[in-house]
């Protein structure tokens, strides 16, 4: 008799509340389609991403090449799919690293407070003093080009921000009386963190991760755009944009389509994150 018929798990309620936000639901499905297309690029792509066709360069969109071809005669649609695979995966990994790594640091800082907190937060202050993109650029320059290097650069650049968010969260939580209560009935530190702090931090962290996914896609393509990050022959949206600058005067598809891909994915993550934030907010529960 633990549950009544009309009572459901929290997950169910969250999904229900999320599904009320139509725009967020649309964004979610756009993201799903995009992820499927990009991750399944070898299946869905009509061409090989490195296949050059010297006789058909800078072709305008047509039935053969829906988005046209680039300066080497490579199919732009194919390269957008492959590029998306890179962007999305790198963004996913780097976001997770930032959130988890930063989260652990922030949680330690917020939970223990005192000297530990002071040292960690001053270090975070130093990193946060450098504008985000600049920090990624510098780290990326040191690590060199390539998907993994980009991933590392973006991830490291995001750690201080992640730490700050979780620290604020933990500090706010620590003031809650239920944490005090748990201590008063003899829960150990570890237990309090695992059973009370972590579950209650989860919602904002999930939202942060989603919004960060969008941010990181911009960061990754930005790095590639200025010649860092993922470079040819790998496909990457930012790198494609960069190569398009050469032909900007008379060939627009190479600039417009990869750019739209970036915008749509970022918009997707932003809208999805917004919807998720509302769905996860316990204040809106009735």
């Amino acid at each position, binding site marked *: *008799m*633990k*549950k*009544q018929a009309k*009572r459901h798990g*929290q997950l169910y309620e969250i999904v229900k509340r999320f599904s009320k936000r139509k725009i967020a639901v649309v964004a979610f499905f756009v993201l799903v389609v995009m992820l499927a297309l990009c991750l399944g690029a070898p299946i869905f792509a009509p061409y090989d991403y490195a296949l050059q066709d010297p006789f058909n360069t800078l072709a305008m969109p047509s039935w053969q090449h829906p988005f046209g071809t680039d300066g080497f005669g490579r199919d732009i649609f194919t390269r957008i799919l492959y590029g998306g695979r890179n962007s999305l995966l790198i963004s996913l990994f780097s976001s997770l690293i930032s959130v988890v790594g930063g989260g652990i640091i922030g949680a330690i800082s917020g939970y223990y407070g005192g000297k530990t907190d002071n040292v960690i937060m001053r270090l975070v202050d130093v990193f946060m003093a450098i504008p985000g993109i600049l920090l990624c650029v510098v780290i990326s320059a040191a690590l060199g080009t390539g998907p993994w290097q980009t991933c590392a650069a973006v991830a490291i650049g995001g750690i201080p921000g992640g730490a700050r968010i979780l620290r604020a969260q933990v500090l706010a939580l620590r003031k*809650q*009386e*239920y944490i*005090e*209560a*748990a*201590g*008063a*009935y*003899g*829960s*150990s530190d570890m*237990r309090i963190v695992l*059973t*009370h702090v972590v*579950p*209650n931090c989860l919602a904002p962290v999930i939202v942060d991760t989603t919004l960060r996914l969008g941010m990181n896609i911009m960061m990754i393509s930005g790095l590639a755009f200025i010649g860092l990050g993922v470079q040819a022959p790998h496909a990457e949206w930012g790198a494609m944009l960069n190569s398009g600058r050469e032909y900007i005067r008379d060939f627009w598809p190479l600039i417009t389509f990869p750019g739209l891909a970036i915008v749509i994915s970022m918009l997707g993550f932003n809208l999805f994150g917004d919807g998720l934030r509302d769905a996860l907010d*316990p204040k809106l*529960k*009735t």
Partner: protein
Amino acid sequence: MTDHLLEVNNLNIRFNTSEGTVCAVNDISFAISPGETLGLVGETGAGKTTTALSIMKLVAQPPGEYHGGSVLFDGKDILQETEGRLRHIRGKDIAMIFQDPMTALNPVMRIEDQIAEVIKLHTDCSAAEALIGAAEMLETVGIPADRGKEYPHQFSGGMKQRVVIAMALACSPKLLLADEPTTALDVTIQAQVLDMIRDMRVKLGTSMLLITHDLGVVAETCDRVAIMYAGEIVEQGTLEQIFHRVAHPYTIGLFGSLPSLDKKVERLNPIVGLMPDAANLPEGCKFHPRCPKARRYCAQVHPELSPAMSWGDDGGHPVRCHMFAAPEPYEASEPLGLVDGLFDEDFTGNMNMAYLLEGKIGRRDEDGADVPQGADVHQGACLPQDPGGQRDGASATGSGTNVTVGASDPEDVAGADTQPAGAPTTTLLEVRNLKKYFQTPSGMLHAVDNVSFTLDRGKVLGVVGESGCGKSTLGRTILGILDATDGQVLYAGEDITHAKGRRRKELQKKMQIIFQDPYSSIDPRMPVWRLIADPLLANGMYRKGKELTREVYRLMDTVGLARRLSGAYPHELDGGRRQRIGVARALALNPDFIVCDEPVSALDVSIQAQILNLLQDLQAEKNLTYIFVTHDLSVVKHISDDILVMYVGSMVEKSHTDALFEAPLHPYTKGLLSAIPVANIDVPKQRILLQGELQSPIEPAPGCRFANRCSYATPECAAAEPPFEEVMPGHFVACHKVREINAL
């Protein structure tokens, strides 16, 4: 008829929410004559504030919607006025005082500018003249005019409320709407503010609509009273009619829920259940699911307001109840029976239900019919546990008084029989010179300063004081949640002040705490059963499984939570049920000693009474020892054996409860007691109004901390800290002048 200043006729207000249309105010009518004060009384969610706002047409539209009715002010319908005309009425003819002074003032605007603004709007004067007017208003409400240059954050709550009042009265309005003007304030400050409102009203001849949940405030302030329940007025009449010839079962329930200062009530008579959700009102009479007198007819037909004829030689006052409106069909239909209603209407508010489930029907005392018969359960309460322990003089005489005063109750008689005066009991807790200081940017905060007392097993010590007096910190320091700065805490003779690790864990099983805020003190992401099981799991006493489930159910039964709620999440529950979870959690480890940290101060009156009864029953049943921390003296009187009064971190008076209430010795206690509004219109009250505000606990000046507010204070008081000495047997007071004042 026409001499009414304000006439509200059949007012209806609805809110369109995503959940559907909510009728916040239903067919409300009342009138206020010039110079008269009408009290609008009800619990949270009754629609009081919405009613008040509608008088100024300030209900936000959307989502609000006026749905018929009229608000005639000076003969003109406010609801039909244009926004431009309304602006001339608002602030000038009708002014409002809001509930929370902390948020009612603009934080980034100077005080004087905020007052001057309203003067400038409604009178023909220059900015400079308005500022002068503002300064005068400040002086009138007792604030030095030069403080007008400051910002709200530099003012205390009481002073902010004075500013709000100054703002409201600046243009001498004809009607003042006061929405719980003193609820957020401390008792002594509340008394000051109420007095001031009363004086100003008389001076300006202003009529007032006073919204409150406190019948005591009503008794002291109002001429007439309207009782609201679930968006409608259920009873309306003069003070005399309501207090002497109360007719509606809800109003009767409200009176029954009040812990009283002037008479000794052993158990409160709360209203069962809780106010229905405005979006989901019951059919028929809206009160019938909670009404002990409900019959089938009540559930079917909505009663009209009609005179309570059977009560009146004066023709009766309007009551919305079938007992008076339609006595024939009411009498003819079968009684509903409250228990029936409880299950039908999804209510589990009353702990008695648990006993009903367990077959202990004898415990039920809804109408005072069933006197407790479970003597076997109750006996333990006053039985001496372990003869041979020492006890101090305070509790010796304490129980001595108990014999004489509490003899009317069978339990106390039993206690007196088995516990002759002077018989030793065990001291469970001893606190010696306990200090707890906090370092703050502006200096050392003396939260608890030199507090000592002993507490016998099975007794309840009430710790009383206003905000910032250190009462909560004291409780937490005793439990070791906070590390004591100095002094000792002895538990059963053992020094546990700085106990750590395993020993602390063991102590935590014996010493528990119930928190004030039922919202922040339970984890919002755990279902009820998990919340209650958490202490058991944390201490490794149970693993998840059948046995744990059984134990959780047992605890839920004990605190009167329906078992079917075990899967519910806290946000689905009201404050009273949440607080029951808090109680169950504290009981889970089977403690001997519980610190109750203002456990009822966040709850509505009727719910408050339910929880108080629960705590009292548990204490008697399990022979628990409580420290009951509260700011509400009437609550502690009801539950405590001894009372300790604290003021800015230090003790001022300690005595047996009855002795303290009968003859308080410390000037502060006297003021505190007299400041409490009493819900009784027969006893004329002697008021000792405490002037000024509490001293800051940060780096307090030497000497008596009360000296700056004490009318007896001499230079000696400010120079030396008064000793906490036994002035009368068992009665300790910290005051240099105690003997002169009380002619001892």
